[in-house]
């Protein structure tokens, strides 16, 4: 009986250590990531930028997530921005776009030496209430201990049920190029 108690005691201690170790994984985050998207068409080029992208990356598991507030996209024309929120992405109904994915072989990356690494990212992008898989390659750059990341991919508006009225069909490209740029990932410090 005594032995069992001791073993239970050890088991608890051990498991706490394991879970603590689990929490102490290296994570990087940013709240100032940039996402730009553009639509090129013979009639009009539309571009918008969002400087308040939130992202977190867990190096050991390779999990990477992005949260993008749709209303933070800034357009050159204020009216365009209003229409984007009101009529296209319906920001009141779907305020955020979320990406949840993994970086392949993330745990094998050496982030201590200055260099650029190309990695594969797979995951799901949820936008306008629709979740679709997205695969792309990203570039991770380590320079003076600062970690930056960037990628670019394109999505079809129809996949996310974002409809374009026929009247403006030749002003908006059905495929949108999205460029992600995280200038500086910060280490998550546990309190």
């Amino acid at each position: 009986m005594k032995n069992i108690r001791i073993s239970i005691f050890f088991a608890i201690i051990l498991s706490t250590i394991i879970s603590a170790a689990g929490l102490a994984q290296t994570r990087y985050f940013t709240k100032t990531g940039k996402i730009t998207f553009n639509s090129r068409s013979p009639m009009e080029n539309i571009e918008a930028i969002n400087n308040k992208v939130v992202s977190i990356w867990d190096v050991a598991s390779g999990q990477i997530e992005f949260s993008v507030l749709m209303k933070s996209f800034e357009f050159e024309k204020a009216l365009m921005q209003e229409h984007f929120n009101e009529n296209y992405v319906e920001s009141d109904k779907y305020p955020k776009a979320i990406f949840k994915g993994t970086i392949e072989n993330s745990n094998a990356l050496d982030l201590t030496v200055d260099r650029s690494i190309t990695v594969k990212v797979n995951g799901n992008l949820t936008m306008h209430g629709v979740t679709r898989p997205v695969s792309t390659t990203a570039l991770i750059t380590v320079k003076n201990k600062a970690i930056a990341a960037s990628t670019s991919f394109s999505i079809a508006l129809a996949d996310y049920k974002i409809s374009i009225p026929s009247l403006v069909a030749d002003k908006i490209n059905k495929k949108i190029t999205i460029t992600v740029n995280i200038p500086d990932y910060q280490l998550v410090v546990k309190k």
Partner: protein
Amino acid sequence: MTKIIGALLLLTFFSSVQINAQSLLQDVEDSIPANEKVSGAFKSTRVINAHSVEMLHKRNLDFRIMHRFGFISSGIKQLYGLDNASMRLSFDYGVTDNTTIGFGRSTFRKELDLFVKTRIFQQSTGQKAIPFSLVIAGGGLVWTEESFATVKPVFSDRTSYYVQLIAGRKFSPVFSFQLSPILVHSAMPANTGDDETIFAMGGGARLKVSKRIAITLDYHHPFGTFNDVTTDPLSLGVDIETGGHVFQLQFSNATGMNERAYITQTTGDFFKGDIRFGFNLSRMFKLGKK
């Protein structure tokens, strides 16, 4: 016993893994919603005739062509009023995001109007939420049509002024409502015997039926002494938005499209078929860079 311990171990281990697997974002995202301005209560800066709580964006020029036809009740001989067109052309410009100036000319009495419209505060959500937007508009008008009166009116006799407060709230993405009390002063009222200064209470509403189409209602009730023919201006319309254009189609009893005209010179009973068809066409131009 070792099995139990092993199971316990596994359980705690997996539970810790699971916590991590839920959402990494929870740790870094702000839980407090940021202050956010509520925009797009109305599709256009005019509900139909009346100023709406919406402003033009900075350096946007809004060219508006407004048409009101004759009474539909005039029948086929007048092609249900289409033979009689009255119009107002206007240019509105956003000096800042909160101040708009505008100039218009109406065929009715060949009247010119100038206005300044300023937003005092804007509806917003978040920690410091403001429940509604408040806008003030003021304008001056002068009619330039030739007068056949025995005593010719001088310039000042032809002028009139108005000041209007607009308090509006976007209750939901679909429904918006505004109250717009207005004071109109005419140096020489169009109908002798009418009060020179008229107070009117106005209400405007918008109901979105689809992303680009909305139903609008615009109503004012003037208080004061009037002749028998003057009635309350009431308009019911449909807004159709297509990129830089807003088309507003409406049925109204008002022929005037400036503040003095629709408040003090509306005739015809809407519910007895004295309805005019009309449309506003708004085209937005962006001047200069942001």
